[in-house]
C-alpha cells in the first residue's frame, strides 16, 4: 500500500508538562463552562473546563443538546423512510451518510448495485469529502483567529460543489439521493461536464490555500505540538478517519474493506507522523488532493447504463430476518450502520456508529496541559458535527 508521509516540521511550541499542573494548589482552580451556545464549539456542545491559570487541568464534554431520538425513530419508520433522516446525521456530508445506510441495507437484503450507480456514488462521496475538508480547514482557521478570509475562500469552493449537488439531487445539503440498489435519479445532461470543470479547478484553490496559510508562522505556532494524539491512544480508543491517519495509523476503510468500486482507483493514503493539530490540518489538505485523483478517474471511466437495480421498489420493502453491519470511510472517519431485521417493513434495531462521537472521546487527553485558547483549536481539528454526535 503506497502512502505519503508528511515532512517533519520543526516543533516551535512544546506543550507544558502535565506534572506541573497536577501539583498545583486545588484552591486556585477555576471551573469554566465553554458553550453550549458558542461559535467555537461548532454547534450546541459544552465543555466544562477546569483551569489552573491558563492551563487546562480537567475537561468534561457535555453533549446531547441536539438529541433527536434518531435511532428510535428509525425503528418505527420503513427502511426507505429512514434515508432522509440519515441526511441529518452529519449534515455537512449527507451523501456519505446515505451511502453507508444504503450499503448496510444492501448487505442485509443482498441487493446488487449497477455499475453506473457505483460510479455516481464514488463521485458524490468524494465530492462530499472535498466539501467537508474544505469547510473544516476554513472553520479551523477561523477558530484560530484568521477571521473571515480563509473561511470565505473555503466556502466559495464549497458553494460550487453544493451547486453540483443541487443539480443532481435537488437539494444542497439534505440530498436523500441513494436508494437500495442504486441512486434515485441519473445525472442530468451536462452534469458530468460541470463536475469535471469543478474538479479541474479545485487544485487552484488548494494551491491558493497553501500559499495563504501553510507557511504562516502564527499558524505553525498555534498548531505544531498542540493536541498530540499518540498512535497507541488512537488505536485503543478506536479513533478512525483523518484523525487516526494524522497519528500515523494506516487505516482507511476504502483500502481495508474495498467497498463499492474503490479497488479500481489508484490513490494514496496520506499519513502524519506527529498527531498534532498541524498534522491533522495537513492530512485534510493532502486528502483533498487524493480525492481529486479518484474523481478524475471516476469521471473519466463512468459508463452508461441503468442507475437502479430493477427489483428495487420504493414501497413494500421487507428484508429477510438477519443482521448486518455496513461501514464506509466517511470524511470524518468510520461511519457504520448496524441493522437487525425481523422481516417486517421497519428495522428491529438500528444503530449508528458515528465517527464524530468516537473521535471526540479523546478530547480530554488532547487538551490537558494546554492553554484554554488551544482547546478551541483542538476541538476544531477533531472535526465534529453535533448532528452526528447527539443523533
Amino acid at each position, binding site marked *: 500500500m503506497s502512502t505519503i508521509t508528511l515532512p517533519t516540521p520543526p516543533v516551535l511550541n512544546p506543550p507544558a508538562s502535565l506534572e506541573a499542573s497536577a501539583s498545583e494548589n486545588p484552591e486556585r482552580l477555576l471551573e469554566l463552562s465553554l458553550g453550549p451556545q458558542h461559535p467555537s464549539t461548532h454547534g450546541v456542545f459544552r465543555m466544562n473546563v477546569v483551569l489552573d491559570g491558563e492551563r487546562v487541568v480537567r475537561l468534561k464534554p457535555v453533549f446531547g443538546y441536539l438529541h433527536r431520538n434518531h435511532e428510535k425513530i428509525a425503528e418505527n419508520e420503513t427502511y*426507505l423512510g429512514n434515508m432522509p433522516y440519515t441526511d441529518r446525521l452529519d449534515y455537512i456530508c449527507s451523501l456519505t451518510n446515505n451511502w453507508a445506510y444504503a450499503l448496510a441495507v444492501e448487505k442485509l437484503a443482498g441487493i446488487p448495485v449497477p455499475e453506473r450507480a457505483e460510479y455516481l456514488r464514488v463521485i458524490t462521496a468524494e465530492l462530499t469529502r472535498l466539501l467537508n475538508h474544505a469547510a473544516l480547514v476554513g472553520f479551523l482557521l477561523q477558530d484560530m483567529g484568521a477571521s473571515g478570509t480563509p473561511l470565505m475562500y473555503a466556502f466559495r469552493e464549497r458553494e460550487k460543489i453544493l451547486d453540483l449537488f443541487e443539480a*443532481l439531487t435537488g437539494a444542497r445539503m*439534505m440530498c436523500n439521493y441513494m436508494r437500495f440498489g442504486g441512486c434515485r435519479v441519473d445525472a*442530468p445532461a451536462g452534469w458530468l461536464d460541470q463536475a469535471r470543470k469543478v474538479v479541474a479547478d479545485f487544485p487552484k484553490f488548494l494551491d491558493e490555500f497553501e500559499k495563504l496559510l501553510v507557511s*504562516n*508562522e502564527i*499558524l505553525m505556532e498555534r498548531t505544531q505540538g498542540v493536541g498530540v494524539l499518540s498512535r497507541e491512544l488512537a488505536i485503543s480508543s478506536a479513533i478512525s478517519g483523518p484523525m487516526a491517519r494524522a497519528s500515523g495509523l494506516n487505516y482507511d476503510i476504502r483500502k481495508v474493506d474495498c467497498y463499492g468500486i474503490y479497488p479500481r482507483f489508484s490513490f494514496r493514503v496520506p499519513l502524519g507522523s506527529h498527531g498534532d493539530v498541524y498534522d491533522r490540518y495537513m492530512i485534510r489538505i493532502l486528502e483533498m488532493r487524493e480525492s481529486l485523483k479518484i474523481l478524475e478517474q471516476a469521471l473519466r471511466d463512468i459508463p452508461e447504463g441503468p442507475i437502479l437495480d430493477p427489483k428495487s421498489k*420504493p*414501497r413494500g420493502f421487507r428484508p429477510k430476518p438477519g443482521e448486518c453491519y455496513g461501514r464506509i470511510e466517511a470524511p470524518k472517519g468510520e461511519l457504520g450502520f448496524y441493522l437487525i431485521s425481523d422481516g417486517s417493513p421497519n428495522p428491529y434495531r438500528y444503530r449508528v456508529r458515528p465517527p464524530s462521537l468516537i473521535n471526540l472521546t479523546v478530547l480530554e487527553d488532547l487538551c490537558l496541559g494546554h492553554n484554554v485558547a488551544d482547546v478551541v483549536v483542538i476541538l476544531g481539528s477533531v472535526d465534529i458535527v453535533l448532528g452526528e454526535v447527539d443523533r
Partner: protein
Amino acid sequence: MIGTGILKGLAETARNFFLSYVSKDRLTTVQYPEQRLPQIEAARNFPFLVYDGAEWDAGMRCVACQICEKECPPKCIFIEKSKDKKPDAVGKPQFYPARFDIDISVCMSCQICVEVCPFDAIKMDVEFDLPTDDRFAGLMLDRHKLSKSNEYYHEIHPTEATAVDTALDAERAKAAAAKAAAAAPKPASPAATAASAASTPKPTEGESK
C-alpha cells in the same frame, strides 16, 4: 526569516482583491433580493398537487389513495377521502381528496411522496418565498393552495414534466384503446367481455387488501 509566511499569505489576499476588478470569477456573491441566481432545474422544496386543464377542482390528478400519507416519514400529509366519485382526466369515475393538507412546518422535503405516488399527482415545488406571521394556519397548506397546473409544472421542471406527460399519455392512450376494444366486440363475442370483466376487478381487489 520569520514573517515571510505571513507576507506570502497577504500577497495572496491582495492578488485576489485586485484581480476581482478584472475577473468576474472572483466576484462570487450576489446582492440577493435584487439579484437572483437562475433556478437550478432539479431543485425542490415542498410538494404540490398537479391538475390538468383549467379547473383546479375538476382536473386534480389525486385520487385520494392515501399512499403518500402512509409513506411520508414525518407524517405531514393529512388526507380525507371523498364519499362520492367524480370523473378524472380520461372520464373514469374516481375518488378525490375531500381534504388534502400538508403541514410544511413539518415537511422535510424528502420527496418520498413523489416517488411513491402511482398517479403522478404530487410533485415538488421550487417556491421558497413562504414567510407568514401565523406559524400554525399559515404553514398548513390546504388542497386549494397546493393545487398547481400542469403548465406550472412544465415551467419549473421542464425535463421531468415532459417525461411524466409522455408516460401519462401512453398510459391514457392504452386505457382508451382497451376501453374501445372492450366496447366494440360487446355484441359480437360475450366471452371476451366476460374475460375482461373478470380480469379487471381482480387487481383492484388486491389493491384494497
